Each structure stands twice: as structure tokens, then as C-alpha cells.
């Protein structure tokens, strides 16, 4: 199995913990939106779309920071970007359709 580069990146602890705090905050927001408040504020379809966008945004944070893709080969970042666009776009289209 090939490994392109054996010298790993170094990421500060603050950056990693900051990403986690952001993920937790976005989860709280999605939780709030998923309850009655969100529907009353935005309407059903809009809430669904926002929740899905938030979910895929959180996935992007996980891959960008925790999976260290911000430092990884372009093909790897592109693979995940395609996955987000196809799956996220498909879900939003099906939910709004």
C-alpha cells in the first residue's frame, strides 16, 4: 500500500477543540430547529433544508479538521466534496420536491 508522504501535519489543540465546539453549537442549533420552534419560525420545508445544510456543514467540518483533509491531497478533498454535493444536493432536492 502506498503512502504519499510520511511526514504528518501538526495541528494546534485549540484548532481541534474549536472545531469540536463549533460542531456542538451547530448540533444545538439543529436541535432547536428540529423542534416546534423551527417550524413555527421558518416553515416545514425551509427547516428541513436548513437542517440538511447544517448536517452536511458539520460533516465538512469533521472531514476538514478531524480528518485533516485541509492538508491532504487534492484528490481526497475533491472526493469528499463530490460526495457532499451529490448526497447533500440529492437529499435537499428530494425533501423540497
Amino acid at each position, binding site marked *: *500500500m*502506498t*503512502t*504519499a*508522504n*510520511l*511526514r*504528518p*501535519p*501538526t*495541528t494546534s*489543540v485549540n484548532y*481541534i*477543540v474549536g472545531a*469540536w465546539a463549533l*460542531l*456542538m453549537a451547530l*448540533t444545538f442549533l*439543529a*436541535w432547536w*430547529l*428540529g*423542534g416546534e420552534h423551527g*417550524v413555527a419560525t421558518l416553515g*416545514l*420545508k425551509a*427547516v*428541513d433544508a436548513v*437542517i*440538511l445544510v*447544517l*448536517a*452536511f456543514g*458539520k*460533516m465538512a467540518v*469533521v*472531514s476538514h*479538521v*478531524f*480528518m*485533516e483533509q*485541509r*492538508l*491532504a*491531497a*487534492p484528490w*481526497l478533498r475533491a*472526493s469528499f466534496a463530490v*460526495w457532499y454535493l*451529490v*448526497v447533500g444536493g*440529492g*437529499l435537499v432536492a*428530494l*425533501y423540497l*420536491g
Partner: protein
Amino acid sequence: MTGTTIASEPRNTTPLAGPGHDGPGGRERAQTGWVPGEVGIWGFILTDMTGFAVYFLVFAYQRTQQPAVFAHGRRLTDLSAGVINTFLLLTASLFVALAVHYIREGRSATSKAMLLGTGVCGTGFVANKYFEWGAELATGRTPLSDNFFQLYYVLTGIHLLHVLVALIVVVYLWRMAARVRNLPTARQLRFIENGASYWHMVDLIWLGLFALFYLTS
């Protein structure tokens, strides 16, 4: 991977530097081809994610066919359990990322402590899922109830299997971290990055399941 093989690997004696960060040439590396762990693990992860992509889209399509059934099912799932499990997996991922960070610095004991935290959070996820499913089944909501609950049990069940595998992987990561003296060898680091990437994938997939089964209408 054996201890003999690991011991025969050259040990790094200076801090590692990498893409976009502390060492010379880092930015260039980011442009050319560094990946966490091995290329093979990413092939595996992307294949697994493709499978879940199909599951997600099938769920959304089925929802368009039976909107009332899915809306009713979604209202019956335990949102609090879903939120708790999301917090547990996100925190487990935090611990894994920190474990990788500390092992690169050669701080084996701290890395092991982080992996222990991962294990605790992951076990908490499994326990919470056990109680959540138990409560659902006790009220008569089974995989045979309707299309929503069939997908609910199948998809979260497949994900639960991934969590169980990831927990076993974490045990191996802990054992590998325990073998690190000074700085990790390239082989040790690849092993730990492979396992960490798998764990993060399990976390990432859960974020999608959480949105579909607990949050959307």
C-alpha cells in the same frame, strides 16, 4: 502488524513537520499528495460512504412516496437520545483527533488517555442506542411496523455495527500508542492515522443519520 516489525523501523528523533504547518516545504506537500494514514484506508472509507450515500437517498426517496408515514415515524423517534448520541460521537472524535495530535508529539501517555476517552464515549453511544431501541421496541415500534421504522432499525443498526468495529479499532490504537517511545515510527503513525480516519468516518455518517431520522420532518 507485529512488534518486531515496528521495532525495526527507524525512529524519528526530531519533531515532525508537515503540510501547511511548522516545517519547510509543508505547503508544497499539501499540494502534492500527503494523505492521513494510507491511500488504501481512504479507498475503504469512500466505498463505505458510497454505500451510506445510497441508503440516505433511498430513505429520502421512500419518504417522498409515503410522507405521512415518515412524518409520523420521525415524531416518534427519541430526539433526546439522538442528541446525546451526537454529542457522544462528536466528543469521541475530538478525543481521537487529540490522540493523533499527541502521538505525533511523542506524548504516548496523553494519547492513550485521549483514546480511553474515545472508548468511554463510544461505549456510551452503544449503551444509549441499546436503551433507545429497547424503549422503541417496548412500545411496539419494530422493523415490521412500517417503512420508516424498517429503515430506522436497518440503517442505525448498520451504523451501530460500524461503531462496534471502531471501538475494537480504538483498542488496537491504544495498544499501538502504548508502544510508542519518543516519537512514533512512520508505520506506527500510519496505523494510528488509519484507525482515526475510520472513527471519524463513523462519526460523519452519524451526522447524516441524525438529521434524517431525528430532525427533519
